[in-house]
């Protein structure tokens, strides 16, 4: 691999097809990326099915579609699925596939450790789902698994233990993958790919990996203590024997809040790679964006107790102040995105549509997040449907929309053919309208005092209309998701060739063939900015380097 070659070779070696044994034993980063994406998609459908059951149960007052026991298990596993088995691992899957490609590396630094990571994740997920078959059914302590509720006295049964073991597998896998990503980014960049020329998805994945290293060990520790409490009389969380129930909340949220950023930073990165391509401009404020990501990561470790404002035992003003501050770097990112679109020439292919959906939804999640960061407001909103709506706007309207943007954007690179634009646009509109119709009414339900995790409500509570509307919205959203599945099937059958760089994108993954060969590159363009492929393709266009000049190096 050399940057002195002046033109790409005409023929690239093709990726070879894998059989079952091949898929089970692969250590190639792209195939591991596919394993993550395929598995998370199945878990996404499962988590969505659980959400459907929840929405049916809550559609009208006093419903008895699900028993309380069933309902408690279902919302517990719905939350667990979406957090641990869908949104966080999709980031790892896309990172597996695209971080090496974006920095010009042939693979991840530790391929076998990489395979161990994905199989720990898949095994953990299957363990959690298998717990539905255990004697007491699946875990039903809520995805936050607060002790002492999750202790053996209040949650007997193997399902709860299987949940703990599943999450321990997943956190071990995540930690391994995070180490691997950091080693890859630090050690395996192509010549010319300095840190300050890395694509922003790679930058955000690097910062996410750091957060995983900080956040997951406390979670694993908290759950290990819980397991000791459950089986070996540990009493870490039982006050009657000198333990502390608040300790669990501290440990869990010291994981839980960085986890929120583990579930959004990768997708901020996707949006930041996609918007410049469809605006025909470089990202506006590259260095500011990276510094903002770092600021978010730093602050995210000092805000965990904003989940504990109502415990009465934490320093609320400190955690309020730190949480408010996160709005500043997040705001910077909004201005990066707007500044990139400003005076550009925007086109609205499906990846860009999803990005705009992301911007519009995530803003609502962000603004309501600032409100919830205010402790007295949280005295009212905590554990109500206002919080439920807020976090779904962040993780669903934000992260999931960005994930769809990334899938539509990168699908041609991963397969060599495009997803159907027409079905994609229909899918977007159904998802966008359905999403807002589902979750906007839940803000209203929350303001009217509806607590979360209740199995039914009385008709006199005033929560009927928002809930019925949300259920209708969910069915519209469901059409959008089904259209995505239809699109996959139709596009895989049609196989409309995409070419190597269908979007005229600028980052390094677009320099190789679609799909890339086993070790990614036989040729690299010279890397002189954060979008070397764009520079190469527009090397004879004075306007490409124009404006106020491509800035090299860091801030």
């Amino acid at each position, binding site marked *: 691999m050399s940057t002195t070659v002046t033109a790409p070779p005409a023929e690239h070696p093709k990726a070879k097809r894998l059989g079952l044994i091949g898929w089970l034993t692969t250590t190639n980063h792209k195939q591991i990326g596919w394993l993550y994406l395929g598995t998370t998609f199945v878990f996404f459908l499962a988590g969505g099915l659980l959400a459907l059951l929840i929405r049916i149960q809550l559609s009208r007052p006093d419903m008895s579609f699900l028993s309380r026991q069933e309902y408690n298990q279902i919302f517990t596993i719905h939350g667990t699925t979406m957090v641990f088995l869908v949104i966080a691992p999709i980031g790892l899957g896309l990172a597996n596939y695209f971080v090496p490609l974006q920095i010009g590396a042939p693979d991840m630094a530790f391929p076998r450790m990489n395979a161990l990571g994905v199989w720990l994740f898949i095994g953990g997920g299957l363990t959690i789902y298998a717990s539905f078959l255990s004697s007491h059914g699946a875990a039903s302590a809520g995805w936050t698994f607060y002790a002492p509720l999750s202790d053996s006295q209040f949650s007997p049964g193997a399902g709860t233990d299987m949940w703990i073991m599943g999450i321990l597998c997943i956190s071990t896998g995540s930690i391994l993958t995070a180490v691997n990503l950091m080693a890859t980014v630090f050690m395996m960049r192509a010549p010319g790919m300095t840190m300050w020329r890395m694509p922003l998805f790679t930058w955000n994945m690097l910062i996410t990996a750091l957060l995983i290293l900080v956040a997951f060990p406390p979670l694993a520790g908290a759950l290990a203590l819980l397991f000791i409490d459950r089986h070996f009389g540990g009493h870490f969380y039982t006050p009657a024997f000198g333990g502390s129930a608040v300790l669990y909340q501290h440990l869990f949220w010291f994981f839980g809040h960085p986890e929120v950023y583990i579930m959004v930073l990768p997708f901020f990165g996707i949006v930041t790679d996609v918007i410049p391509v469809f605006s025909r401009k470089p990202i506006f404020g590259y260095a500011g964006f990276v510094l903002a990501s770092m600021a978010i990561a730093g602050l995210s470790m000092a805000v965990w107790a904003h989940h504990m404002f109502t415990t009465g035992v934490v320093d609320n003003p400190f955690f309020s102040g730190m949480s408010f501050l996160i709005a500043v770097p997040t705001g910077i990112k909004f201005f990066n995105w707007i500044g990139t*679109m400003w005076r550009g020439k925007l086109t609205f292919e499906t990846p860009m549509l999803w990005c705009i959906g992301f911007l519009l939804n995530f803003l609502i999640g962000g603004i309501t997040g600032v409100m919830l960061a205010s402790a007295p407001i949280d005295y009212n909103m905590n554990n109500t449907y206002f919080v439920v709506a807020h976090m779904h706007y962040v993780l669903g309207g934000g992260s999931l929309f960005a994930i769809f943007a990334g899938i539509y954007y990168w699908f041609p690179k991963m397969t060599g053919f495009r997803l159907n634009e027409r079905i994609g646009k229909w899918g977007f509109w159904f998802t966008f309208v359905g999403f807002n119709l589902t979750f906007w009414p839940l803000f209203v339900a929350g303001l009217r005092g509806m607590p979360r995790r209740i199995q039914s409500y009385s008709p006199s509570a005033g929560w009927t209309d928002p809930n019925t509307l949300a259920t209708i919205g969910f069915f519209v959203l469901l059409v959008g998701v089904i259209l995505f599945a239809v699109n996959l099937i139709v596009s895989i059958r049609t196989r409309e060739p995409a070419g190597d760089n269908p979007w005229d994108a600028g980052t390094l993954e677009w320099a190789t063939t679609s799909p890339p060969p086993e070790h990614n590159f036989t040729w690299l363009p010279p890397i002189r900015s954060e979008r070397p492929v764009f520079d190469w393709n527009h090397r004879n266009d004075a306007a490409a380097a124009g404006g106020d000049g491509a800035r090299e190096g860091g801030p």
Partner: protein
Amino acid sequence: MPGPEDRELVNGSWKRRTAAGPRRRPPWLGAAAGSAALLALTGCDFGAPPGASTQGRTIADLYHVLWYFAIPVGVIVYGLILWSIFRYRKRRDDDGALPKQTRYAFGLEVTYTVIPILMVVAIFGFTYRAEQKVDRVVPNPAVVVDVDGFQWQWRFTYEGKGVTVVGTPGNVPTLVLPAGQTAQIVLRSEDVVHAFYVSAFLFQRQAIPGVVNRFDLTIPSPGSWPGVCSQYCGLDHTSMDFIVRAVPPATFQAWLSEQQSSQSATGGTSS
């Protein structure tokens, strides 16, 4: 200076595109629309209850203040996003040239960092003041009630009065308090974490085993409001309801003595 993409060649001379509006309008428009909305919404309660307790009213006021920050920010950012989408979309008659490849605008970047920091400082000030008021516990409350949460009921014990109210399945317990006086709640849990939440007071506090939480409730006028357990606590979390009823102080005293005699006679509790 308008860029070349704003102009077109008409009859041999450059003309400004008619479709293009004045450059500085969007943030301006956003701010104007924001202020208009602000004025229109000053009387609005933004969906939250007005606050039936003194502490709750403080929270409701803070909630309104936060909206006065949120609405202009939301309108401006939405305005900028939508403006970019509609104004800067690629036109049908596009010449295929690249737009100006702007990467940095240092002054602008500093501005959009500093202004949010100032806003955050202001919001923090309002939050801090409100929280001091809400969290204050007076040294001499009119009545002190021990509230104990347990799976899946509440027990209200009036300190020094020998009166206990406990809920049973199908019988929602009522927390009777004197209106116009300050009642102090001492909150505990006997098993798992629960939370005492009255939406009308815009207030909740967790009941945590091993922790004693104190807070004051000052309810200016008589009334009756539903309360729930808002922290998921297991199988029957859904039905851990209670009622708070505020009555005039004289009625409260009468109710207390009536309960005292009936409870000492039966040795039991009521609900």
